[in-house]
């Protein structure tokens, strides 16, 4: 990396930067992405138990009936929903839809609103 000018003011202190809606939508996309990677072994483990034998399938079903397990599953599904909705917005912007400043704000707001509704619906479905 070339040092252009050391005297340039740099502020990357996240606590003092104001976050507009598109920045919030973007950072949540990242956080849910990292979160989904962390959740991956849980999903693989559940798939493994659900397929191994009728007994492990029944055990998993009993486990998923407990409130804590349902909450964890809802959390993972919520991250998936947000990451998917934000990803679709990303692809739409890639093909040139909503690329303006105003379009970016509106798109980010839509992502937050649509995923919030879907996450609530998913919660209703899980319970």
């Amino acid at each position: 990396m070339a040092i252009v000018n050391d005297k340039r003011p740099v502020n990357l202190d996240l606590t003092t930067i104001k976050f507009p809606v598109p920045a919030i939508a973007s950072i949540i996309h990242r956080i849910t992405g990292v979160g989904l990677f962390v959740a991956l072994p849980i999903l693989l483990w559940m798939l493994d138990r659900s397929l191994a034998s009728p007994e492990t399938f029944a055990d998993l079903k009993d486990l998923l009936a407990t409130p804590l397990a349902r909450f964890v599953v809802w959390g993972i599904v919520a991250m998936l929903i947000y990451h998917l909705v934000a990803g679709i917005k990303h692809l739409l912007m890639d093909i040139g839809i909503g690329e303006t400043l105003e379009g970016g704000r509106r798109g980010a707001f839509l992502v937050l609103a649509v995923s919030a509704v879907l996450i609530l619906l998913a919660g209703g479905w899980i319970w």
Partner: protein
Amino acid sequence: MVTSVTSLGRNGLYDWLIQRVTALILGVYFIFTMGWLMTHSGVDYLTWKAFMGSLCMQIANTLVFFSVSAHAWVGLWTVTTDYITTLQFGSKATFARLTAQLVIALLTLVYLLWGLVMIWGGA
């Protein structure tokens, strides 16, 4: 052109494309699987096993495991190169970033193998 020895495609354009192609596969799979689960609530073991054991789903799951691995690697590579830098970690940044990337790469490989053995090993 900036290249990097740790990025999946070794250049940004290729990573950009990998991220989008895998995103499409994962998006379609997620919507389809969710739809299946919603229309088969209270599914029993035999139906579930037959569904997941069908050749279609074995191939779809294999594609998805490879897609998750590539997608996670490109995404987490971006996150680690953005946040584990000299700004946050000073002179230890390269060591910290490569360590994090090594752990992520190994975990990704373990998850991929676990998934493939699960789907094809007849477990």
